[in-house]
């Protein structure tokens, strides 16, 4: 259990060091810069971040009491939720707003084995209403999707 609470600060430390590497690769400015340069702020933040993580790791090691972390980060439903968000974004990219939203909403309702017809009607009404309001009231052209429009 103890190792688990250490993973996060260790990851952040690793990321900070990677960031420090990239900072050293920043190109030199072509225009004038202050004595506090474009590298200073990110470097300082990355170093402070490493120090903070050091304290967190130290705290975890010294703290003998077992803090009960939840057994798993994701349960079945939040895992579905995460996959749902990612696939919805991918779907919009390809098929555009309308088809993706309607499809995703129905898949969602099916996943939770919803048998209330009203919910499905809501899904259809919601999709259409949002489409209409954005296009005609807010004048936002919702994504058309790769297969209908151009590059996004």
């Amino acid at each position, binding site marked *: 259990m103890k190792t688990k609470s250490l993973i996060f600060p260790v990851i952040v430390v690793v990321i900070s060091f990677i960031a420090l590497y990239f900072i050293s690769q920043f190109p030199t400015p*072509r*225009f*004038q810069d202050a004595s506090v340069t474009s590298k200073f702020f990110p470097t300082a933040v990355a170093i402070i971040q490493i120090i903070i993580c050091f304290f967190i790791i130290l705290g975890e090691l010294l703290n003998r009491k077992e803090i009960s972390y939840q057994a798993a980060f994701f349960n079945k439903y939040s895992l579905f939720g995460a996959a749902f968000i990612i696939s919805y974004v991918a779907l919009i990219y390809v*098929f555009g707003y309308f*088809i993706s939203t309607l*499809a995703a909403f129905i898949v969602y309702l099916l996943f939770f084995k919803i048998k209330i017809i009203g919910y499905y009607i809501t899904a259809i009404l919601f999709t259409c209403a949002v489409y209409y309001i954005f296009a005609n009231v807010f*004048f*936002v*052209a919702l994504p058309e999707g790769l*297969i*209908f*429009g*151009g*590059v996004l």
Partner: protein
Amino acid sequence: MKKIIKSTLIVAAFAFMTGATAADYPSKTIRLVVPFSPGGGTDSVGRAIANSTKDILGENIIVMNRTGGSGAVGMSFGAQQRPDGYTVTVVTREIASLPQMGLMQHDADDFKLIRMVNLDPAVVLVSKDSPFNNINELVAEAKKRDGGVKFASTAKPNFYLMALENSQNIKLNAIPYNGSAEAIPSVLGGHTAVTMVTPGEALSQIKAGQLKALGIMSEERIAFLPNVPTLKEQGVDVSTGTWRGLGVPKNTPDAIVETLGAAFDKAMASPEFVKFMKNGAMTIHNLDAKAFTEFVAQDSKNLGALINQ
């Protein structure tokens, strides 16, 4: 699922058929990509031209703000759209400068330029209490104190300033500000000595006497500020400014480009648009496709010389 895919394909095929034919253009809503955020000069010109053109074309024109990278994101986005005339992009002077600095992945050649809309010179401004009364006093002071005169810069790098610096062999301390909305208060508050913006951005401060115009960076005096002499009149031969125009992706059929060009000509001549530009102290400068393309090529060359010096 199969059904969805099938119906999708049918819809897709349908969209293809109705989409790209030039004969019945335009037959659906047109998007106008504005590469800057709502409220700025580019945005309001874009919205005004969209508003005036939509009745001429008989189709609605939606303004789509796509900001980022000083215009690079929006203009690159516009260049990559399907060349069917349904995505028009407002191109600004940044399309001539950013690619040469490696800050934009597309350039003017990725567009078919349709019309130039406005061309506005920069005006050199100091606070009303400033010791400088003309451009030569400023240049003399900058010569005396190398890098000592503080300049509120609305862009990084600032090509207006670089043009002056190069011609007079001087150096100012350019402090970067986020557009004229921050540069002007900085001069008003006395934190910086001088700034350069377009007349529309500072007309009310000049008229109210809060800011003193040392000179306008154009060949001739402009109508909005008839009492402000040009730099050339004062013996400093520098003219520079900024411009905006309209373009479509480079493979757009010529017939569509002509339809759009004719519509923009009418829109730019409409009383509504003329009044809008006059109120904003912006000068309509309608160049046709050929002249605009040549103009951009020449400006790219000029900017290239400044960038690569």
